[in-house]
């Protein structure tokens, strides 16, 4: 078996929590902080930490605005993040292909 795909897996995305965030953001133009927190059942602190890591890697962008006089934080995936996520999925598929019995 070629270990190459496994070694190439993006460590930023590979963490369980961040993978969940990236999966959700990849399917929709943007999501609010509360929507993600409620769906993923994460604490505010945990979600903030993961989003910050993804933001530092350039995978996620954050927009702060107001809705009905209340602050609204929305996240969306960047072009770099989309590319990295697609690459991550392709590598997972390669791993499955390699180990599939012929």
């Amino acid at each position, binding site marked *: *078996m070629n270990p190459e795909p*496994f070694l190439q897996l993006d460590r930023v995305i590979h963490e369980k929590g961040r*993978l*969940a965030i990236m*999966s*959700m*953001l*990849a*399917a*929709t*133009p943007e*999501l609010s902080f509360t*929507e993600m927190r409620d*769906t993923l059942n994460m604490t505010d602190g945990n979600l903030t930490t993961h989003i910050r890591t993804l933001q530092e890697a350039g995978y996620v962008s954050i*927009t702060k*605005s*107001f*809705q009905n006089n209340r602050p*609204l934080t929305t996240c969306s995936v960047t072009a770099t993040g989309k590319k990295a996520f697609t690459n991550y*999925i392709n590598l*997972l*598929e390669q*791993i*499955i292909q*390699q*180990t*599939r019995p012929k």
Partner: protein
Amino acid sequence: MRMESNWAAEHLQVIRTLMERSALYRRALAPVMIFNGCMGAIAAIIGWAAEIDSPSGFITYWAVIGLLAIGGSFFLVRRQALSASEPFWSPPTRRVTQAMLPPLIAGAIISVFVLVRLASFQRAAPQNPMFPAAVAMLWIPEAWIVLYGCAFHAAGFFMPRGMKLFGWAFILGGCALFAAGIPPARVSRLAFSHSVMGLFFGVFHLAYGIYLFYTEKRRDET
């Protein structure tokens, strides 16, 4: 080796599930709600003015209005999808439709049964000639309202949060009408039935549509 394959497959499954869950239905709903509100309000006025007062006429009339409203809504959604160069029958659209179907189909089946059995209701209670009209024009609209609310509540799991509240308004409103019972004799059946339909399917939709018009516009601007 097998374990790594399982692990990768599980990861892909988790990704797929989360992507499906987050793909909310995000078409602008204001035009659809305003269209349905106008349809409901105008239909109620026409129904009242044209004195559609027979039980079978009432059910048939509102069933046709319902079909026109569904057709018009799909047309509006399709137009939005085409202008955004996106597929019309997308997974979120499919899920919303699937969620709404059971209560709507139940409403249609109940209406057909009542329509078919109107004559037998009369035979079963000859001493009470108002019974078929009470069923068709008082209880059927209330059942439609409750089931319509259930449809929106179910669809709300795949739509922005306000949609569930909209569904609850119909469910509770319909139940309140059931609880209130048959209106007093001074209120004409014609006026009551068409007003109830106009209020729920007309005014409620219009009010929510206008609210969405401003909130969706604001969301697009931010």
